[in-house]
């Protein structure tokens, strides 16, 4: 447990219920969560769609009021000092909300004005940030000409205009092609090296493993696990996973034959996952049972398997 005096973000019993106050039929998106984020770390919030990640992020961004519990950010209370907190945060929302009526550079300039920064400071910073996000050549173009990856980079540049201490990223690479994702990860990693605290939500396991020092797994509004990626993998999974695919007609009989071979087995719509300490040995055992998979793959356990173990569901459902 982190000492709360050093935590940049300190959430205790945090709840978010949508609907009118006192309305019992309200929808509970976040159901009493506790977590602390330390200065300089990259902290991940993992979960499937609807797990409560975005609601949590919106409360931290001080754009959505806390229903119950306490949320302190940078030493301030999120309920009473929202504007002071927002002045020191950078926010990269899930959907790109860049101003489509302005050019690339104008987006940065005007956004900086919302923070009360002078035009002189903004001219210098916008040039530097366009360089940082590799958008210098697009500076005077309309934002409608940007690709998805460029738009996301512009959103990140915009989030950095006030030189924030914490940057919130809500599913930063959703919808981007692999190349664009890697460029984005590289830039985010650079930010982290420069000492900026990152808080990101994702449903991509590779993203969490690449970027996060520590993470929490959310399911149905609750935190179901917390730790470093490697720690979670060690705690909740066996060393390896054997993935089997079957011909559609045979799937049920084959699956039944595999039952009992390993301690844990997950049935996904398209494949069967067997957790094991030795994938090759398990595969031999599978063959001895007379099971003939279309394909068989042995791989190391990942965060995806942690999530499966904890929630019984795939992340990308």
């Amino acid at each position: 447990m982190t000492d709360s005096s050093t935590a940049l973000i300190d959430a205790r019993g945090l709840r978010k219920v949508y609907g009118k106050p006192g309305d019992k039929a309200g929808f509970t998106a976040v159901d009493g969560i506790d977590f602390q984020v330390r200065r300089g770390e990259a902290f991940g919030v993992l979960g499937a769609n609807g797990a409560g990640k975005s609601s949590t992020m919106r409360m931290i961004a001080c754009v959505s009021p806390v229903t119950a519990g306490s949320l302190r950010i940078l030493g301030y209370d999120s309920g009473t000092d929202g504007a002071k907190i927002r002045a020191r945060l950078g926010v990269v929302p899930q959907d790109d909300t860049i101003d489509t009526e302005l050019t690339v550079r104008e987006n940065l300039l005007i956004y900086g004005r919302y923070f009360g920064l002078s035009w002189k400071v903004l001219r210098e910073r916008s040039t530097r940030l366009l360089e940082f996000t590799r958008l210098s050549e697009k500076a005077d173009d309309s934002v409608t000409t940007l690709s998805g990856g460029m738009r996301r980079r512009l959103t990140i540049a915009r989030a950095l205009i006030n030189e924030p201490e914490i940057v919130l990223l809500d599913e930063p690479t959703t919808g981007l092609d692999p190349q664009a994702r890697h460029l984005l990860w590289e830039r985010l990693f650079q930010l982290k090296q420069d000492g900026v605290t990152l808080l990101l939500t994702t449903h991509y396991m590779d993203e969490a493993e690449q970027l996060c020092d520590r993470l929490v797994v959310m399911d149905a509004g609750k935190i179901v696990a917390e730790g470093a990626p490697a720690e979670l993998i060690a705690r909740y999974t066996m060393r390896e996973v054997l993935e089997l695919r079957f011909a559609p007609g045979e799937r049920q009989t084959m699956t039944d034959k595999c039952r009992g071979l390993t301690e844990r087995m997950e049935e996904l719509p398209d494949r069967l996952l067997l957790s094991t300490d030795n994938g090759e040995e398990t595969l031999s055992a599978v063959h001895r049972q007379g099971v003939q998979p279309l394909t068989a793959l042995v791989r190391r356990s990942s965060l995806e398997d942690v999530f499966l173990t904890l929630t019984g569901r795939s992340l990308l459902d």
Partner: protein
Amino acid sequence: MTAMPTGAPAELPLRPGRAWTMVERNLMIYRHTWPVLLAEIFEPMLYLLAFGVGVGLLVGDVPGLGASISYPQFVAPALLATAAMNGAMNETTFNMYGKLTTDKTYESILTTPMSVRSVALGEVFWALVRGAIVSTVFLVVVSIFGLADLPGALLVIPSALLIGFAFAAVGLLTVTFLRSWQDFQLIQLVMLPMFLFATTFFPLSVYPRPVQVFVEVLPLYHSVELVRAAFLGTGSGYPAIAVIYLAVLGIVALAIAVRRLEGTLRP
């Protein structure tokens, strides 16, 4: 390597109520799209030409206003009041609805220290800036044609600003109730009859008394009275009532609108 922040404390003092930055945003956009404003000025001119001059040739002077007033002189201030109303309403209904729904412009603005109130006030300010430009150009043109007496008619500008404020606030309140783009038809259903009958084209005296009472309640009627008084130097008691009516309407609508927007924008 790029020198990025290393957790330095924010050096800028927090300045709440930065409503003016919303105007800066709009000015930046209008650097690219200023011809839109020309269209807004062109519309009342067109009405003035068609009704004021065209119909004016048929009807001669307008009775019941003391001194002899030509029909173009009667219609011009009403068209200016209507232009001030429409410009402000369009800004806070049509333009704002797009920014609230499809563009999600405010969503990103509100992740900064900007408050919902600053954003709302800022959009109203901008509607006023636009209104000031449109009414000034209109006034200059009609003065050239001898329809308004400068410098007395300069009172038209603050009048147009007050009208702009009232209707920008009403528009802001309206936009919080809109469910879809189709609802704009309903707004038109109110605005068009009001434009036609709020003493724009004929004086109040032509109506039977019960209808007069109905017309006298309309905000555009008071707007027309206000601008007409400034234009013609007539209407002794009316401007005070009109000023109070429009100011109260604007302030009340704005206060309710900001509260409702708070719920919409910070769920």
